[in-house]
C-alpha cells in the first residue's frame, strides 16, 4: 500500500456563513502500480481530495498514511494532528503533484525547473540530476527544450515539463489534478500520451480528470465522486460500461452528447 486515506472529512467556510462540507467521510487506498482515475462533476470534491492527500489542505478528520508513515491522524476527541515538519519532509518525498495550471517556475529554464528541487531539496549531485533530467526531457519529447523558458513553450509542452519536474523527485506516487483542463484538444493528446506511457511503465498514479475515454483506457480503477462522497468505484469497464448507480449513469450521459 502506497497511500491510505481513511474517513477523510473536509469543510470550507461557506460564503453565506456556516460551513460547506466538501469531503464526507471519504476513504481511498492506492496500491503500488495502480492507476486510479477520479471522475465526477465540478464541486464533487475530487480536487480537494488530491489537495488533502498532498497536504495543500489540512483535513478536518480522518487519517492519511504514506507507505508505513501515518502523516495525519485523528484522536478519540476528533482532534486532527499532523507529524512534525521534519518527519513530513520524508513523506513529501513519496508523492508528486501535477497541477491543472502547470505552475512551472517562469524565471527558471526548463532544465532548471526539473533539476532545482532534486539538488536543493534532496541535496543530490547536480551533474547526476542533470543527466537524469535530460533523459526525462527526451522521454517527454522535449530533448531540445532544456534551455528554453516556460513562456516560450506551448501549454502542452509546459505540462510535460511539469510532469518531468515531478518525476525527477522520484516519487512513489504521482497525482494529477485535471492535467489537461487548461489545454486545447490537440495539446491534450500529447499530455495524455505521456501519462499513458507512465501507466504502461506501472507508475502509481491518481488522476482527477474529465477525459472519460482516457480514464477508461488507462485506469485499473475508476472512482466516481459526487457531493463529497464516493458514489461508485471499480473496474473501468464496469463503471463506464455498466454503472450500478443512477447518479453515475446520469453523469456519464452528460458526456455522451
Amino acid at each position: 500500500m502506497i497511500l491510505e486515506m481513511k474517513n477523510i472529512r473536509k469543510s470550507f467556510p461557506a460564503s453565506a456563513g456556516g460551513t460547506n462540507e466538501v469531503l464526507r467521510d471519504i476513504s481511498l487506498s492506492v496500491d503500488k502500480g495502480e492507476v486510479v482515475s477520479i471522475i465526477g462533476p465540478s464541486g464533487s470534491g475530487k480536487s480537494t481530495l488530491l489537495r488533502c492527500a498532498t497536504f495543500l489542505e489540512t483535513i478536518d478528520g480522518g487519517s492519511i498514511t504514506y507507505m508505513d508513515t501515518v502523516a495525519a491522524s485523528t484522536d478519540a476527541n476528533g482532534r486532527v494532528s499532523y507529524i512534525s515538519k521534519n518527519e513530513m519532509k520524508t513523506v513529501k518525498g513519496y508523492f508528486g503533484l501535477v497541477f491543472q495550471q502547470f505552475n512551472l517556475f517562469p524565471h527558471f529554464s526548463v532544465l532548471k525547473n526539473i533539476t532545482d528541487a532534486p539538488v536543493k531539496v534532496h541535496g543530490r549531485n547536480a551533474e547526476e540530476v542533470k543527466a537524469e533530467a535530460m533523459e526525462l526531457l527526451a522521454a517527454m519529447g522535449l530533448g531540445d527544450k532544456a534551455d528554453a523558458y516556460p513562456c516560450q513553450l506551448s501549454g502542452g509542452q509546459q505540462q510535460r515539463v511539469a510532469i518531468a519536474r515531478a518525476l525527477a523527485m522520484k516519487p512513489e506516487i504521482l497525482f494529477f489534478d485535471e492535467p489537461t483542463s487548461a489545454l486545447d484538444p490537440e495539446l491534450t493528446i500529447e499530455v495524455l500520451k505521456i501519462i499513458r506511457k507512465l501507466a504502461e511503465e506501472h507508475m502509481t498514479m491518481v488522476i482527477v480528470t474529465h477525459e472519460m475515454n482516457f480514464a477508461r483506457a488507462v485506469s485499473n480503477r475508476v472512482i466516481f465522486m459526487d457531493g463529497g462522497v464516493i458514489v461508485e468505484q471499480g473496474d473501468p469497464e464496469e463503471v463506464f460500461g455498466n454503472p450500478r448507480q443512477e447518479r453515475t449513469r446520469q453523469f456519464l450521459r452528460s458526456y455522451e452528447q
Partner: protein
Amino acid sequence: MEFGTMLETMGSGMLKTIGIFFLTLIGSLPLGVGIMLLRTSKNKVVKSITKAFIAVIRGTPLMLQLLVWYFGPYYLFDWSIRGWRFPGLIIGFVVNYACYFAEIYRGGIESMSVGQYEAAEVLGYTKSQTFFRIILPQVFKRILPSITNEVITLVKDTSLAYTLAYAEVFSIAKQISASQTSFMPFLIAGVFYFIANYAVAFGMERIEKALKYYN
C-alpha cells in the same frame, strides 16, 4: 563670478546630493523589506501600527518630516541638535522612502499566484527557499518599474535637504543666484538633476532588459 568658479562651487553640492541619494537607497531598500514584513504580520497590533505609520509618512510632506526629524529632538526632548543635521536628514529620507518601498514590495508579493507557492511546497522547498529562490526573483522583476519611478523621484527630492540648510546642489544654487543676481546656477542645477535622472533611467532600463528573458 566666472562660470568655471560657479561650476566648481556647485560641484561640492553635487557630491553632497549624490551622497544623500545613495545613502537613502542603501538605507531604505532593505528597511522597506522590514516594514513590509511588519505590515503583513499576522499580529494584528503590529500590522495596524505599521499601517498607521505608513499612512502618516505617505500622508505628510517630506519637507515637513525633515523638519520634524531635525528639530524634533530639541523641541520634544530638549536635546542638543548640534551635529544632528546630516543624520536627521538621512533618517528622514530613509524612513520616507522605506515606507513607499514597503508598499511596492507588498504589492509585488501579493501579485504572485498561489500556484507558485503550492508547486514549491509540494516539491519540498522550505519556506525560506520558496521565498528567496522562487518568489523574490519574480517579485523583483515585477516591481522594477515602480522602483524606477521612486528612484527618479528621489533624485529630485534630494533638493528638499535645502529646508535644513544642508549645502547640497540646490541650496548652493540658491545662494549663488541670490549673491550674484544670476539665473545661471539654477540652469546648472537643472542640467545636473536631468543628467542624474538620465543615468538612473538608463541603468534601470538595462536591468529591466536583462530580466526580459522570461515572462
